[in-house]
C-alpha cells in the first residue's frame, strides 16, 4: 500500500538536498573553469569570449581560467610554430569586427615564416582597458609558451581606476596577489579585498552566474564552430567616422589641464608586465589613436584624450621604456583617419591590416634576427 506524500516532507527533503549539494560543491571546489569543449570537441576560439547585449550568440566570461581554456592558444604548440601573443584591450580584441579581420587574424594572413617555422599570432585582447587585467593575461600566457609577447597600451589602460569591473572582481584573489607582489598602488584595492570571496561565493548558489556563463560558453562552441566565427552581427561600419569634430572639454576625466599624470598612471605595472613575461621577449606598443582634424581638435586628439594629457602620457611612456631598455614602438598616429570605425581607438579592417604590416618588421626582427 502506498502512502500519499506529505508536502511538508517534500519541502524539507528538497531544502536539505539543496543545502547538501551547495556544501558539497563548496568543499570539493570542482575545477569547472579548466574543463572546456574547446580545443577538444570544437576548435579553440580565435579570441576571448566577450558578450554583446544585442547578440544572443555571445557570452562574457570573466574567469581567466575558463577564458584561456576556450582560446586556441591552449591547444598544444606545434614543433614548427613560433607563437606570438597579442595582449591589449578592445582594439586588439577587434571591437565590432568579425574574428577573421582582427589584427591577429590579418597578421596571420600575411603568412609569415622564419627558418621553416610558421609564425602564428594569437589574439589575447579583451575589451576592457586595464593594466591589471593585462598583467593577469601576461602571467597566464606564460604557460602557453609564447615566443614573443606584444603588449598594446594606451593612456586609458594605464590610468589608475576608481571603480572595479567584473573582470577584476571575478579574479579578485589573483589580482590582489599580483598587486601585493609587484607593489602596484591600485586605487580600489581595499574595495576589491572586501569583495573577495566569502564562503557563500564558493557554494553552488554563489557560483551560479559563473556556472551559467560557463555552460553557455561551452554550448556556444557548437554554434561558433558551425558558423566559423564568434560574432554574428558585426556592426555595419561606415568607411570613416561620421564626424571629425571633438568635444570642447579640456579635462581628462576629472583632471584639469596641466595636472601631473605621474600620480594617476600605474607606471609600476609596466615593469611588472616585463617581469611577468619572463623569458619571452616583450614588445610594448603605444596603440594608434584617432587624431581628429575638425572643431576643437586643437584641444583634444579625440573624444577620449585631450592633447595635454596624451602628450604627457607619451613622454612618460617613452622615458620609462628608454630608461629600462624595453622594446617599444609608439604608433599613436600611424593609421589614417579613414581606417578607424570610431573617433577613439577602434580600427576598420583596413586599419588592422595596415597596423599588422607596420608591426611586421619589428616582429620579424625579434623572432628572426
Amino acid at each position: 500500500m502506498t502512502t500519499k506524500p506529505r508536502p511538508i516532507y517534500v519541502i524539507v527533503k528538497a531544502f536539505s538536498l539543496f543545502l547538501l549539494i551547495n556544501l558539497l560543491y563548496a568543499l570539493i571546489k570542482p575545477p569547472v573553469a579548466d574543463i572546456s569543449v574547446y580545443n577538444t570537441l570544437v576548435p579553440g576560439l580565435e579570441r576571448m569570449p566577450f558578450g554583446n547585449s544585442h547578440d544572443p550568440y555571445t557570452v562574457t566570461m570573466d574567469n581567466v581560467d575558463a577564458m584561456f581554456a576556450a582560446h586556441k592558444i591552449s591547444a598544444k604548440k606545434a614543433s614548427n610554430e613560433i607563437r606570438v601573443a597579442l595582449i591589449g584591450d578592445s582594439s586588439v580584441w577587434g571591437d565590432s569586427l568579425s574574428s577573421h579581420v582582427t589584427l591577429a587574424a590579418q597578421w596571420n594572413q600575411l603568412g609569415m615564416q622564419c627558418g621553416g617555422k610558421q609564425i602564428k599570432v594569437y589574439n589575447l585582447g579583451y575589451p576592457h582597458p586595464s593594466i591589471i587585467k593585462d598583467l593577469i593575461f601576461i602571467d597566464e600566457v606564460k604557460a602557453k609558451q609564447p615566443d614573443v609577447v606584444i603588449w598594446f597600451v594606451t593612456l586609458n589602460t594605464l590610468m589608475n581606476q576608481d571603480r572595479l569591473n567584473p573582470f577584476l572582481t571575478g579574479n579578485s584573489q589573483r589580482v590582489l596577489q599580483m598587486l601585493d607582489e609587484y607593489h602596484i598602488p591600485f586605487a580600489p584595492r581595499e574595495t576589491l579585498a572586501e569583495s573577495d570571496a566569502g564562503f557563500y561565493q564558493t557554494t553552488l548558489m554563489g557560483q551560479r552566474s559563473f556556472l551559467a556563463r560557463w555552460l553557455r560558453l561551452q554550448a556556444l562552441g557548437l554554434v561558433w564552430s558551425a558558423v566559423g566565427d564568434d560574432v554574428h552581427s558585426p556592426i555595419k561600419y561606415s568607411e570613416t567616422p561620421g564626424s571629425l569634430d571633438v568635444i570642447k572639454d579640456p579635462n581628462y576625466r576629472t583632471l584639469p589641464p596641466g595636472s601631473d599624470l605621474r600620480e594617476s598612471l600605474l607606471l609600476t605595472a609596466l615593469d611588472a608586465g616585463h617581469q611577468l613575461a619572463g623569458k619571452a621577449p616583450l614588445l610594448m606598443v603605444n596603440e594608434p589613436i584617432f587624431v581628429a582634424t575638425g572643431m576643437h581638435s586643437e584641444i583634444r586628439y579625440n573624444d577620449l584624450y585631450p592633447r595635454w594629457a596624451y602628450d604627457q602620457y607619451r613622454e612618460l611612456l617613452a622615458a620609462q621604456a628608454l630608461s629600462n631598455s624595453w622594446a617599444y614602438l609608439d604608433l599613436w598616429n600611424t593609421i589614417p583617419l579613414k581606417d578607424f570605425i570610431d573617433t577613439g581607438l577602434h580600427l576598420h579592417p583596413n586599419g588592422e591590416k595596415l597596423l599588422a604590416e607596420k608591426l611586421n618588421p619589428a616582429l620579424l626582427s625579434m623572432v628572426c634576427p
Partner: protein
Amino acid sequence: MSVLQVLILACVAILVNQLNKGRSFVLLGVSALVIYWIHPVQDSITLTFWIPTFTLMLTVIFWLITSTLEVRSWKQNWGAVLVLLGVVILVDLNRYFQITSLFIADTPRVQLVLVALLGFAIVSFLLSRVKKFLAIVFVVATLGLVAMLVLLKIPSALTTLIETVISLRGKDAGEASVISWLGFSYVAFRLMHTAIDRNAGRLKAVTLAEYVNYVIFFPAFSAGPIDRLERFSRDLNEPISVNWLVAGSRLFKGLFKKFVIADGLAWFALSDILFPNVHSAAWMWFFLYAYSLRIYFDFSGYTDMAIGLGMLLGVQLPENFDAPYLKPNLTQFWNSWHMTLTQWFRSYFFNPLTRFMRSSKISLPIWLLIFVTQLVTMMLIGLWHGITWGFLLWGAWHGVGLFVQNRLSEWMRPRVAAWNNTPRREAILKYSGIFFTFHYVTLGWLFFFLPNPYMAWNVMLKLFGAA
C-alpha cells in the same frame, strides 16, 4: 516573467489560497496589481501606467455590456469597484512612495488620474443605463476590440497614432517609438468570447469581481491559456481543494521547461542573426530543430506555470498543449498545439464561417469549402500573432497543409486499409506521419520567426541544398 517573479507569484497564490472569505476580492486586487507589476516599461513612460489602467477600464466596460441588472447591483459589486479603484490609485501614488522595484515612479499626477477615473465612471454609468439597442452595442464593442487588436498588431500604425496624439499635445513626437500592450491579445479574446456568447444568450451574467478576475487572472494574463468564463467562474466560487504536490510539480515542470530547456535551446535556435552565417544545410537543420523545440518548450513551459499557479489558487485552467510534436498528422497537431486558441477560433470563426458557407445560396463543392474555411481560419490565427506577411504566410502554410492532409487522408484511407494490417506496418505509418508532420510544422516556423518571407525562402533553399 523572470524565475523570481514566478516564485513570488507562487508565494502570493499560496497566501491567497489560505483565505476562507473574500478570496475573490483579494485575487482581484492581486491580479490588478500584477498586471501593473509585470508590464514592460514603455518608451513614453506614463504609458506604463495607462496601458494596464486601460485594460482594467476596458474590462469593466465589457462587464457592463455583458452583465444583467440582477448582477449589476451596487450591493453585489461595491467591493470589486473599491478594490479596482484602490489598486489604480495605489499604483499612481508610487510617485510619492518611489518603490521602483515594484513599479515605475513616473506615474501621472494624481489629479489627472482622478479626472480620468471620474470620466470613466460617467461613461460607465451611462453604459449601465442602456437598455435599448444592446445588440448594436455588442457589435460596436466587439468590432472596436477587433480594431484595437488590429492596430496593436501593426506596430507602424500604432506608432503613427501615438506620435500623432503626442504631436497634438504639442510635445516631441520622438517620445513614442514602440509600445507593447502586455497580454492584450488574450484579454481581447476573453472579452470577445463573453460579448459573443452573451449576445447569443449562451452566457450567464456574473458579478464584476468574477468577470474581471476571469479576464485578468494573473497566472494566465500574459500567455494564456484562454479559459471560458462559465468554467472559470465555477472554480472561483467553489471551495478550494488544492493538491499541493500536483500544483507544485506542475509549476516546477513549467519553470524547468521554460528557464532550463527553452532558454538553453535559445543558444542554438536559428534566428535572423544566425542564419546568414550558416553555410551548411546540415547545421541549418540543426539550428532550425533547436528553434522548433525551443518555441514548444518556451510556450508550453509558460502554460505549465500558469496551470500550476492556477491550481494553487483553486482554478483548474484548461490545457494548452498535448505533445503536439508527436502527432501523426497536422489536424492532430492543431488539436494539441495552443489548444485554447484553436478552440476559440473554431467556436467563433471556423464553425460560423462553415455554417454560413454551407447555407449560402451559392453551392460550393465540399473540397473548396474545406479549403477556404481552413485557409482563412489559419491565416487569421497567423495574423493574431502580428499583422505581417510572415505570420500571414505561416497561417497559409498551415491552412494549405491541413487541406492537403484532409484530402490526402480521404484518398489514402481505403488504399492504406488493406496494407495496414500488421502492428509493424501500423507503426511505420504512425512514425512516418509524426516525422512528416514535425518537419512540416518546423519548416513553417521559418515564416513565423524570420523578419520577412524572403529570408524564410532563402533558408528553405539552403535547407534543401538549393542555395
